[in-house]
């Protein structure tokens, strides 16, 4: 291992600009002669627009233009994934216009855009727009939505998007008939707001001379936006549409999707003949960034007399919100139900998932996307089964783990796990958590009137998204490969163009480490370029912890092509057979001799090919590769959380978080730990603090940082994180992914710990977020069982 190669905690390349205020985020960009857009949004969750008069706004000071849905006759915002119901019917896919046409379906839905010389003038003019609404009842509750009555979309009866299943219900029922014990649970996976710290922003520009449009946007995947917006919404050919996602301040899924504002500013730019800039206020982010989670589930687990799992039945309702966001349909199906085997050998599983429209913000993938919902359900249910059967929390898991020698392991819900060692991560986490010392700590807490609990979560997830053939067969309307281009410059430095996109993950460092390790170059000779469709050949972007497992593999493949070509050049110059050329430590050597060429010499020769045999050797040294993975990758691990609860106030303090994850080969341990910390914070946030609240009229009550509880520094402890690695079996680097593990593993560990702490009082359930009020109420109810009944 070199100090800049694979396995080194290299300090991040990108930090220098971020730490000195020289980052370049979308809102930091200023185009010459730019205008400012303000979007008038619906204050109602469900209403027909009976009058929309923008004439006064058009005449207001500084206003350049005002557009409505009637002006903007463009395509519907598309959905990227089709899920079919179990009867074979395609999901309901209602029209989604960028600016509303006659009807609004959630608070925040776009009605009109005002473009002005300044943002203040645009906002002031928006107040002069006259809108009359015929307010209709809002559909907010998922169960009520499925009962029919008010429809969010007239073409979706009972507000049902799809009714999907996986597994054989009859076989599972038979397993339940033979069960020694059945544990049941009702779970709500609370709706959360991703809340990347950088609000979304978009700048549209049009160059009349070239006919080229440019969109600068806060995106995790600029090529995907170019495809969705260009091909489906605005019908702009790709060679005339450039999408740039510069520095992006966090995404967590929320910046994957194609949003209306991107289409609006791009469409409007040639109309007003000037660049158009829009930046969300935080309240707009709360209202319009796709939310996450929001499932209601009933599940039952059948066990034999030894606590072995015999079968699992799951019935889930998943909220889609008012429209289908880009990936929304696949989250509660192929990213959720396929993970319901978890780390266990449960032989028979059936899951039914109904996706439902409501008059709320669209819901889509948020850090973990489906896998946190699966892990939360399973780990809560396993915890409950252990308590009901009197088996220790670690013991019930050990009895059911897929053994480390059983890989590749085919689950009953489609996925084939390639590698893992769940016993190893469990045992290492137990050591980190000092589980052996827990009884003494619990006694010490009790001596001062406090309650103490320990909660486990042993999880697996599927990421490195994804084999195109597999996802294509499951309804994805895109391939999920990745591209990389390695340009070796004449003096031997390397520029990499990757289709992955960094919005905090540190690709400029990690990917440079791959190059340094493979080509033997110092970091200052390597540039990682991403985020611009005019520079990068193609890219599916960064989400689903796919950057290294897919983008990194594409980079390795391109570098191998560079090495192959370089060997040809070296063989020619050194007058040796190509097969005799070895590449090691940045040098090409004729094996068994002292004849060698440095990497830089080969590069220069490639661009100064004075005596190349041109019929067999092209000048130049630049290679492109596309990589489509063979399988998902399957990170897994064990998170153990210890809490202390003050029964007088319900305040829960997280005393210790121990997370041992198997993320595959670690390229940069410092960055891996950082990713884990961030995921843990979001998972703990969901478990203890965060939650969207809508009132019955569909108003988002938690629409600002005053109302929505973001985890702050004093809400969280320091974390104890480590890895216990098994290598991915189907990619060359052996990498699995770390972006989402923290958010997947931690919520059930937190809630199981709280339930454990309260179990002595007879409490068996706790919902997320476990606020002090809820915990206190659970304690009061337990103290007064008669009153609770």
């Amino acid at each position, binding site marked *: 291992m070199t100090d800049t190669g694979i396995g080194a905690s290299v300090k991040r390349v990108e930090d*220098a600009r971020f730490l000195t205020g020289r980052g370049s985020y979308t809102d930091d960009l200023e185009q010459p002669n730019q205008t400012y857009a303000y979007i008038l949004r619906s204050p109602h969750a469900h209403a027909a627009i009976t009058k929309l008069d923008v004439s006064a706004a058009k005449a207001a000071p500084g206003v350049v233009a005002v557009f409505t849905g009637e002006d903007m006759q463009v395509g519907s915002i598309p959905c990227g994934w089709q899920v079919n119901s179990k009867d074979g019917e395609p999901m309901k896919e209602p029209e989604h216009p960028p600016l509303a046409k006659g009807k609004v379906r959630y608070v925040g839905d776009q009605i009109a855009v005002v473009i002005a010389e300044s943002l203040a003038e645009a906002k002031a003019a928006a107040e002069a727009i006259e809108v009359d609404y015929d307010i209709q009842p809002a559909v907010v509750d998922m169960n009520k939505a499925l009962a029919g009555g008010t429809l969010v979309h007239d073409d979706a009866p009972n507000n049902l998007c799809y009714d999907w299943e996986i597994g054989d219900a009859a076989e599972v029922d038979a397993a339940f008939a033979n069960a020694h014990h059945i544990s049941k649970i009702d779970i709500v996976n609370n709706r959360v707001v991703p809340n990347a*710290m950088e609000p979304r922003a978009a700048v549209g520009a049009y160059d009349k001379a070239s006919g080229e449009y440019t969109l600068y946007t806060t995106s995790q995947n600029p090529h995907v936006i170019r495809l969705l917006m260009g091909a489906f919404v605005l019908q702009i050919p790709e060679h005339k549409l450039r999408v740039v996602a510069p520095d992006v301040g966090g995404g967590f899924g929320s910046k994957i999707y194609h949003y209306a504002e991107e289409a609006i500013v791009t469409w409007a730019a040639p109309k007003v003949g000037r660049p158009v800039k829009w930046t969300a206020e935080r309240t707009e982010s709360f209202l319009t960034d796709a939310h996450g989670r929001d499932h209601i589930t009933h599940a039952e687990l059948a066990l034999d007399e030894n606590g072995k799992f015999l079968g699992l039945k799951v019935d889930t309702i998943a909220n889609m919100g008012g429209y289908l966001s880009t990936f929304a349909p696949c989250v509660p199906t192929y990213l959720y139900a396929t993970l319901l085997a978890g780390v266990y050998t449960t032989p028979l599983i059936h899951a039914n998932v109904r996706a439902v429209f409501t008059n709320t913000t669209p819901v889509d993938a948020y850090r973990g996307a489906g896998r946190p919902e699966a892990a939360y359900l399973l780990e809560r249910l396993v915890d409950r089964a252990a308590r009901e059967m009197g088996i220790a929390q670690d013991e019930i898991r050990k009895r059911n783990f897929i053994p480390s020698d059983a890989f590749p392991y085919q689950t009953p819900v489609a996925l084939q796990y390639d590698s893992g060692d769940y016993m190893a991560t469990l045992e290492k986490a137990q050591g980190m958590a000092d589980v052996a010392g827990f009884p003494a700590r619990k006694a010490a807490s009790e001596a001062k009137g406090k309650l103490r609990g320990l909660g486990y979560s042993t999880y697996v997830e599927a990421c490195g998204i994804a084999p195109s053939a597999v996802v294509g067969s499951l309804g994805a309307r895109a391939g999920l490969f990745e591209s990389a281009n390695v340009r070796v410059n004449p003096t031997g430095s390397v520029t990499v163009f990757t289709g992955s996109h960094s919005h905090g993950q540190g690709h400029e460092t990690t990917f440079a480490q791959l190059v340094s390790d493979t080509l033997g170059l110092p970091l200052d000779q390597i540039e990682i370029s991403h985020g611009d469709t005019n520079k990068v050949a193609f890219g599916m972007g960064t989400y689903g912890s796919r950057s290294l497992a897919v983008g990194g593999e594409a980079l390795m493949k391109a570098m191998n092509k560079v090495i192959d070509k370089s060997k040809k050049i070296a063989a020619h110059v050194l007058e040796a057979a190509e097969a005799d050329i070895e590449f090691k430590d940045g040098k090409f050597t004729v094996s068994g001799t002292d004849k060698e060429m440095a990497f830089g010499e080969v590069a220069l020769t490639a661009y100064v090919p004075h005596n190349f045999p041109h019929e067999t050797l092209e000048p130049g040294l630049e290679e492109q590769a596309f990589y489509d993975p063979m399988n998902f990758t399957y990170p897994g691990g064990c998170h153990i959380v210890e809490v202390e609860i003050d029964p007088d106030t319900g305040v829960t303090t997280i005393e210790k978080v121990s997370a041992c994850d198997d993320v595959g080969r670690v390229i940069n341990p410092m960055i891996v730990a950082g990713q884990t910390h961030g995921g843990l914070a979001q998972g703990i946030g969901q478990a203890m603090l965060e939650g969207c609240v809508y009132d019955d009229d569909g108003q988002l009550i938690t629409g600002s940082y005053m109302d929505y509880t973001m985890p702050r520094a004093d809400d969280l402890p320091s974390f104890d994180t480590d890895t216990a690695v098994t290598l991915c079996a189907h990619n060359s680097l052996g990498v699995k992914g770390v972006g989402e593990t923290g958010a997947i593993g931690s919520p059930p560990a937190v809630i199981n710990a709280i339930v454990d702490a309260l179990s002595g009082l007879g409490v068996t359930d706790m919902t997320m977020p476990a606020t002090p009020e809820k915990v206190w109420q659970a304690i009061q109810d337990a103290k007064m069982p008669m009153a609770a009944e």
Partner: protein
Amino acid sequence: MPTVSMTVNGQAVTGDIEARTLLVEYLRENLRLTGTHVGCDTSQCGACVVHVDGKSVKACTMLAAQAEGSDVLTIEGLADGDDLHPMQEAFRNNHGLQCGFCTPGMVMSAVDLLNHNKNPSEGEIREWLEGNICRCTGYHNIVKSIQEAATKM
């Protein structure tokens, strides 16, 4: 239009502004110092923290006119030429930042903490950062960064 004059990162600046202009708008739009960020509209997130006359303030919650005659320090002015401030260096050493959006406010706030308290405990650091939200790091490495900076400042 009123005129406002102040010192920003050691340079005297004067500008004609609308009276309602916030300090953060003046910095970002008039002076093009875009290192100071806007992450919310309720003075909660702290991405806009700068120093005014040596104290950390949220630049979204102060009119530019209120900074008349003041000495303003932004993230762009913290380093000494090419030499990072010890706090910036500590954030880099400890991976105290990921997407970088909250970072300028976080660093400016942390510098002010150490100006007040040379050797804060972990609890004091976490309490001080209550007004700065980070969604990436879980604060773990931010706390470590500040602890390291405390040994160097």
